[in-house]
């Protein structure tokens, strides 16, 4: 496990006290680095479980937003991604992301099949705790993309896409920023994945929905959410899990984690308020879907910044994200007419970019060790911009190629008839809800 310089710096503070203690005790020979801190290990295990729960939250958030005849397919895409990408991660993904760097671009194959990834301590955690925490990030990122593809993508094609994308796009990108790669070396600030997770999934979503084409009837019929309470519950679980995602990214239950936790709550609250206010002004009414969307926008935007900025910056970041993402989703998308069905690009792509750049503005040396524009370090904003642009370019090209390749193996889009019937019945042979009459069918023997 190779941490970037950045994370190493964060960790340093976390273990300072313990080291001091141990060093000052005569007769203790081992270095602090060698021990598992039960507190931090517990914290990251629980954070991992919380990130896993985000995938379920996502399945609900997305599932509630689609029409009744494609809710199961939508939820399946998140749920099975959680499984397929976990396998990819064990077999080769973790190694590509966190193996010893090969020229800053990709990790070596030393951890293939999680070999060497076990109970041994590594920076205060069990090595496997770190590997699993990172596994959940990979799963979530691929699942996020699916929101742009709903109601029309062949399920098998999505699975193949997910395997390739996790391998070819996510693992290297993760390596660049956190695994000892070139972006980390350049000093980019990405606390919990503004680029690695959100810009990347947002761009993949946009490219994918353009390649797939719009849903049949898009722009002619409304395709409103079929179950908004489900969407709100999903947003709530995402919010809950995101504390694990952001605070857990400190990799220790230290002050940095606490700061990340605090600004996550603040930016999310403000994301909701930003979106709701914008909507109230434009449509005359605040909607629940707007509130839920604003929460995600706020969460996305604070993700890269969480370990580097303070509470007042979080207010600006979150509120700005709510407004900007609302404009992207409700005004710009309507004008351009592409069918980013559940607004993955509009929220994760746009919100992630906003968050990545603004981190370069508000970063406070006293919090995360790096100053931003406001503290006179304009260069940091430049580094952030380089990272954003390189992420966008890389992800866009790679995603396009992957989709084209998948399309050769199996057509990525379902037949028109299957789309009419609905992908739940067509691809999975299931109906989400059965009332008494409906459920009364005829058994086949």
């Amino acid at each position, binding site marked *: 496990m190779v941490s970037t310089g950045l994370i190493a710096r964060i960790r340093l503070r976390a273990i300072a006290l313990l080291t001091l203690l141990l060093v000052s005790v005569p007769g203790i020979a081992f270095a602090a680095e060698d021990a598992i801190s039960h507190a931090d290990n517990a914290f990251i295990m629980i954070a991992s479980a919380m990130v896993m729960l985000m995938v379920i939250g996502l399945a609900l958030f997305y599932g509630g937003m689609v029409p009744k005849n494609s809710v199961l397919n939508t939820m399946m895409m998140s749920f099975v991604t959680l499984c397929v990408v976990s396998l990819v991660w064990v077999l080769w993904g973790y190694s590509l992301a966190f193996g010893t760097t090969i020229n800053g671009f990709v990790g070596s194959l030393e951890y293939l099949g999680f070999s060497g990834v076990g109970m041994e301590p590594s920076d205060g955690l069990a090595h496997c705790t770190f590997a699993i925490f990172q596994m959940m990030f990979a799963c979530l990122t691929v699942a996020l993309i699916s929101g742009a593809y709903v109601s029309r993508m062949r399920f098998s094609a999505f699975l193949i896409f997910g395997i390739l994308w996790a391998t070819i796009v996510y693992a290297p990108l993760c390596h660049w920023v956190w695994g000892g790669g070139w972006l980390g070396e350049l000093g980019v600030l990405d606390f919990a994945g503004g680029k690695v997770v959100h810009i990347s999934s947002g761009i993949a979503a946009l490219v994918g929905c353009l390649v797939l084409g719009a849903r049949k009837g898009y722009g002619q019929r*409304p395709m*409103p*959410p079929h179950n908004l309470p489900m969407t709100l519950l999903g947003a709530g679980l995402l919010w809950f899990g995101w504390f694990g995602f952001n605070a857990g990214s400190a990799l220790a239950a230290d002050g940095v984690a606490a700061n990340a936790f605090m600004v996550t709550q603040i930016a999310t609250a403000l994301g909701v308020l930003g979106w709701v206010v914008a*909507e109230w002004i*434009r*449509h005359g*009414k605040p*909607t629940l*879907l*707007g509130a839920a*969307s604003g929460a995600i926008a706020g969460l996305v935007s604070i993700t890269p910044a969480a370990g580097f900025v303070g509470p007042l910056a979080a207010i600006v970041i979150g509120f700005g994200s709510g407004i900007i993402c*609302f404009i992207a*989703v*409700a*005004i710009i*998308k*309507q004008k351009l007419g592409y069918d980013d069905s559940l*607004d993955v690009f509009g929220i994760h792509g746009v919100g992630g970019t906003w968050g990545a750049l603004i981190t370069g503005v508000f970063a406070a040396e006293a919090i995360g060790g790096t100053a931003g524009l406001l503290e006179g370090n304009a260069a940091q904003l430049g580094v952030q911009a380089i990272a954003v642009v390189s992420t966008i370019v890389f992800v866009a090209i790679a995603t396009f190629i992957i989709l084209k390749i998948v399309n050769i193996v199996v057509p990525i889009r379902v037949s028109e008839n299957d789309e009419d019937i609905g992908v739940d019945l067509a691809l999975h042979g299931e109906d989400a809800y059965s009332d008494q009459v409906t459920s009364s069918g005829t058994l086949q023997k």
Partner: protein
Amino acid sequence: MKKVEAIIRPIKFEEVKQALYKLGVKGMTVTDVLGCGMQYGQKEIYRGTEYVKLLAKVKLEVVVKDDMVDKVVETISSAARTGEIGDGKIFIYTLDTAVRIRTGESGEEAI
């Protein structure tokens, strides 16, 4: 034998039902429907998209003897009326016959 079919506001259903009971009408069948008429629909919003949806209404079906029709129509009308657009409609049909499944009775006895 007639079927009186009334499309009314959901909020008025309980009142109508009780008025019918008072009149002595004990049998009825009720369905959730959507409708539009003069009252065209309700604007909804999701993520910047505005659209108009049909309105939720309740369809009430009561099969009664011919001589009850006027009283039933009268009762439903006065219980369901608010005076605003959207109060609903009543449609009246003639039946050939009715059958009570439990006993096999048919015709007026079956109602």
